[in-house]
């Protein structure tokens, strides 16, 4: 077992090093910006893989936490904008247009950077913890939990669009200052921002790996497979589920903050249904029960999409192909590409894991062991 764990760490490390090495080969600011976006999508996929793949909570509203993080960062950067972009008394421009005369209380603490950085992760986590406590405390699970997460996201999205004078409404928050910390400036179109994102991604991946390998991670997987039995063992199932739900939200919040830095704006579409659906597709394609697989799935799908988006007609067809691919993967490859690769690897060395070829009790992803795989 320990040999397998170290092999897994090695694999994860190599992938992260490869990601960190990209700016050595690519010297195009525009491309680096694009790649940084793909890395952020990879973080989102890790977040969903934690809650969906490991704990069985299908979060159809993952974009809600992403958007909240993004807005926290945007509020902070907006207040840092050089006064020429803002209205009188340093008010953000859209507030002046909406006849707001003084900074709303909710904006005031965002003048401080430590607060904003913390809030970008804690606000989504708190939201998720509340929602999780509400759902899992009442033993809402499965399909119903999925619908609640979706509804919650739509509500937050509607409120953000509606409260135009505080959030910029439909247009979101634009015209942001550059992010800089400890004297380091992060221009969205530069290698430094790419490194920032890549380092955050690496840290996230390994934190997620540690959590999934911990006792908590094991209990969560047990909950996913047989919730009732875990409850009868005396574990507080709701607490564990709420924890992973909040952790996943914090990761998505971090990704949202980075996204604001990379995109230089925040918009209500960041909390939209289409993005949420995309995240689910990435994770399904990559493999929901593999953190690395989910992450690479996100990069692969968005990468191909980005390459095709040069031509309008291709992009239209791509959506169609993506939908079809998604349905096929749900039907025939519940473990995604990671599962396929793992099965392939298992066949090559021959006989290494023959013990696992137990007959699946039910047709489905539930009962199959997957802990040993390197992915």
């Amino acid at each position, binding site marked *: 077992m320990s040999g397998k764990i170290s092999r897994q760490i090695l694999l994860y490390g190599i992938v992260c090093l490869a990601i960190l090495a990209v700016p050595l080969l690519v010297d195009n600011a525009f491309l680096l910006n694009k790649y940084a976006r793909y890395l952020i999508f990879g973080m989102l996929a890790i977040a969903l893989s934690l809650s969906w793949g490991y704990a069985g909570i299908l979060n159809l509203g993952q974009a809600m936490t992403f958007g909240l993080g993004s807005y926290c960062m945007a509020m902070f950067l907006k207040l840092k904008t050089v006064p020429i972009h803002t209205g009188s008394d340093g008010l953000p421009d859209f507030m002046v247009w909406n006849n707001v005369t003084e900074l709303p209380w909710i904006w005031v603490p965002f003048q401080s950077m430590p607060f904003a950085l913390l809030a970008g992760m804690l606000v989504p986590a708190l939201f998720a913890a509340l929602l999780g406590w*509400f759902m899992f405390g009442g033993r809402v699970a499965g399909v119903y939990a999925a619908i609640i997460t979706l509804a919650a996201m739509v509500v937050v999205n509607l409120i953000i669009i509606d409260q135009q004078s505080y959030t910029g409404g439909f247009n979101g928050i634009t015209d942001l200052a550059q992010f800089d910390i400890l004297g380091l400036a992060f221009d969205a179109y530069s290698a430094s921002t790419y490194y920032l994102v890549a380092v955050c991604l690496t840290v996230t991946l390994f934190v997620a790996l540690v959590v999934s390998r911990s006792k908590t991670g094991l209990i969560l997987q047990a909950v996913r497979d047989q919730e009732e039995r875990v409850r009868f063992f005396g574990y507080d199932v709701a607490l564990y589920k709420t924890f992973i739900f909040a952790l996943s939200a914090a990761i998505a919040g971090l990704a949202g903050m980075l996204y604001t830095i990379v995109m230089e704006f925040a918009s209500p579409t960041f909390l939209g249904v289409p993005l949420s659906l995309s995240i689910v597709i990435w994770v399904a394609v990559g493999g929901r029960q593999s953190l690395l697989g989910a992450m690479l799935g996100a990069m692969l799908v968005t990468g191909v999409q980005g390459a095709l988006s040069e031509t309008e007609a291709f992009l239209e067809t791509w959506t*169609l192909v993506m939908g079809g691919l998604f349905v096929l993967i749900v*039907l025939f490859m519940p473990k995604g590409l990671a599962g396929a690769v793992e099965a392939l690897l298992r066949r090559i060395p021959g006989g290494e894991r023959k013990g696992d070829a137990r007959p699946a009790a039910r047709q489905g992803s539930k009962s199959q062991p997957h802990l040993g795989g390197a992915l």
Partner: protein
Amino acid sequence: MDFVVAQILTGLSLSSILLLVALGLAIIYGVTGVINLAHGEFVMLGAYCAWLLQSQFGWSLLASLAVIFLLIAALGWLIELAVIRHLYDRPLDTILATWGLGVMTQQIVRLTAGGELRYVQMPPSLSGSVNILGATDSAYRLFVLAVALGLFLLTWCIYRYTSFGLKLRAITQNRAIASSFGINSARAYRLTFAYGAGIAGLAGALISPLKSVSPEMGTTYVVDAFMVVVLGGVQSLVGTLASSAVLGEASGLLAYYSNDTIAKALVLIAIVIIIRFRPQGLFAPRVRA
């Protein structure tokens, strides 16, 4: 008085549309347990069929209704055969698969029929208005209401009084035991899915003269329909009727009094709370599991 009647009529019209759209979803969900997120796309396809038959072949809307029902039902039959039947053991995956199917359908329509809005003519015989207790209402809206109630009654009678309905009820209670008594549950599921899809298509066709037809129109309907089903209770057709009446009248009132966005947010929050505390729905009878 006129105002009250008019307000009630507006609400009833909204209710009838809700009932039409939700009926198919309720049948499918109640019998097979599948949350069909492609339901809105069935509605949209029904509307596009009506548009196509009218603009290309000159059929009047009323004449094309039966054809549309059969077309969309056949599509539903095929989808069940190809996709859904593999997923009955994995409820979460049915959400995903039907979502994917919905995206595909939207995209196919956008690529073939174009993304612009389409309009369907009202049948000329129903384009007048009717006077009820001092308030006037369009004859077509009343026609839609009548059709919605008729379809509901038909479905209820099938469910209640035919041997097929009896089998459905048995499967709903316990699929394994029903199968062991010789009921072909796979066939029943397929027929149910086709019937639900057909009704959705019919709903789309009937709605098409009232709203504009676009590839995205299904998305709003699936959310509304789902709310109706959740509120009404999963296994209760009468609940679906009651909740579409309640929701229709309520949204009529809310739209009159307040901001649309906030009203919608409030309704969603209410739904979340209902799911949390009464997942079996407001109007559901106690069913032995």
